[in-house]
């Protein structure tokens, strides 16, 4: 069977068979309610009847839940229903004791979030100390960070980026919504500025990594 006929059939079907938008909204509501993890638009479309448009239905659903006890949140390219943050006081029972993160871990996490994709050497340069293996491991284990693409500089170092779990945990739609990101960028504080000449701490290849960072940033922070 040729691909064309298949696609044509799909379009034809969608014209006649896709459920009405109200019904699609109900379906998304059911799926998001049933799932603790954020669900991607693609997965929603896959699970809904042929011809559905989850992205559009989500817009309606999000609006419907505005100001309610639970809200529809966007997490990266996925969606989830979460309780409204102002009602947290009702949930003492549900509160999960999160592992206390060390200061080093919190700083490392912030540097990864704001500078991603970022190499371990760059994290160390910003913090001025070496990053212990345990700190990175802990963040990886919590699935708040993951490996990004390798940097195309000598040694091809691995980079770190934050995950969807990270966004979910901090209620961020995307890494662009990190608090103060714009101001930090405007102040030039997210640059990987090469040190003048050679200083004891910094290695070479900083110019390279700056290029890499900008490239990566645009990729991650813009859509």
């Amino acid at each position, binding site marked *: 069977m040729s691909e064309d006929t298949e696609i044509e059939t799909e379009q034809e079907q969608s014209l006649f068979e896709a459920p009405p938008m109200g019904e699609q909204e109900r379906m998304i509501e059911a799926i998001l309610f*049933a799932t603790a993890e954020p669900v991607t638009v693609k997965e929603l479309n896959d699970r809904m009847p042929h011809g559905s448009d989850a992205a559009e239905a989500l817009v309606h659903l999000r609006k419907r839940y505005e100001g309610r006890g639970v809200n529809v949140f966007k997490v990266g390219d996925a969606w989830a229903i979460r*309780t409204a*943050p102002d009602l*947290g006081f009702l949930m003492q029972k549900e509160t*999960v004791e999160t592992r206390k993160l060390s200061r080093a871990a919190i700083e490392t996490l*912030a540097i990864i979030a704001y500078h991603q994709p970022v190499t371990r050497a760059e994290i160390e340069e*910003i913090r001025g100390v070496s990053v212990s293996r345990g700190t990175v491991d802990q963040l990886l284990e919590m699935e708040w960070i993951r490996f990004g693409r390798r940097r195309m500089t000598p040694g091809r170092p691995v980079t770190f980026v934050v995950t969807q779990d990270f966004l979910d945990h901090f*209620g961020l739609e995307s890494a662009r919504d990190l608090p103060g990101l714009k101001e*930090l960028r405007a102040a030039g504080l997210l640059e990987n500025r090469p040190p003048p000449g050679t200083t004891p701490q910094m290695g070479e290849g900083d110019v390279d990594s700056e290029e890499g960072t900008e490239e990566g940033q645009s990729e991650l922070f813009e859509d």
Partner: protein
Amino acid sequence: MNDATSDRSDSAVAERLAAEALIVDVDGFEGPLDLLLTLSRTQKVDLRKISVLQLARQYLAFVEKAKALRLELAADYLVMAAWLAFLKSRLLLPPDPTEEGPSGEELAAHLAFQLERLQAMRDAAAQLMARDQLGRDFFARGVTQEVQRVRKVEYTATLLDLMQGYARIRTKDEFRPFVMDRDAVFTMEQALERMRGLIGFAGTWTDISSYMPDGWGADPVRWRSATAATFAASLELAKEGKVELRQSETFAPIELRRREGR
């Protein structure tokens, strides 16, 4: 470091006190940059307007004090001290136009940038942690409905599979049955054939090993097979009355000669 000692008297009393307070807690710092950032706070100015010269003095004073108290300082603190001493001299002396490399001001600006960036990241981290957090301020669905996975297996085959399958069946009669190729075996039949052609010349007693086929003596496996076959063939020829065999003693060579009078 001598510079640092002489400069120490210049430092404000408050700074010295602060530095002393810090010494006790030297392990609490995450490296020289962290220490520098803490020291810079005593200047109580915007990090962008910080006096790096003053900061260098503060740091060097701190390191001297730590030495006086015989505190073990990690190597990177000392490396930073050396670099700051160098930076301080650059900042104090008028620039030497013949000297290569970045100016003291450039180095100072970069250090200020590093401090500002570290401070910015700390502030960002604090802001991040102050956000509403999942499982603390807002919550996910308490009960999750498992998505039931229905597995459906779809079988495929290509036209090529089909044709090859058919060809395989229709041509299987042509297949030559698999036989072990025994190239290291010299059969009795082969030995007989060889010897029959040779015994006509065996008028005198000859060692039967001389009837072994050429080239079978090197490989022990082939040698054994050929020896056995030649011996068996000799017996067969003796039985037929075509040759006579003799052996002078046990394990001595077996000799063969054509039987006369026929």
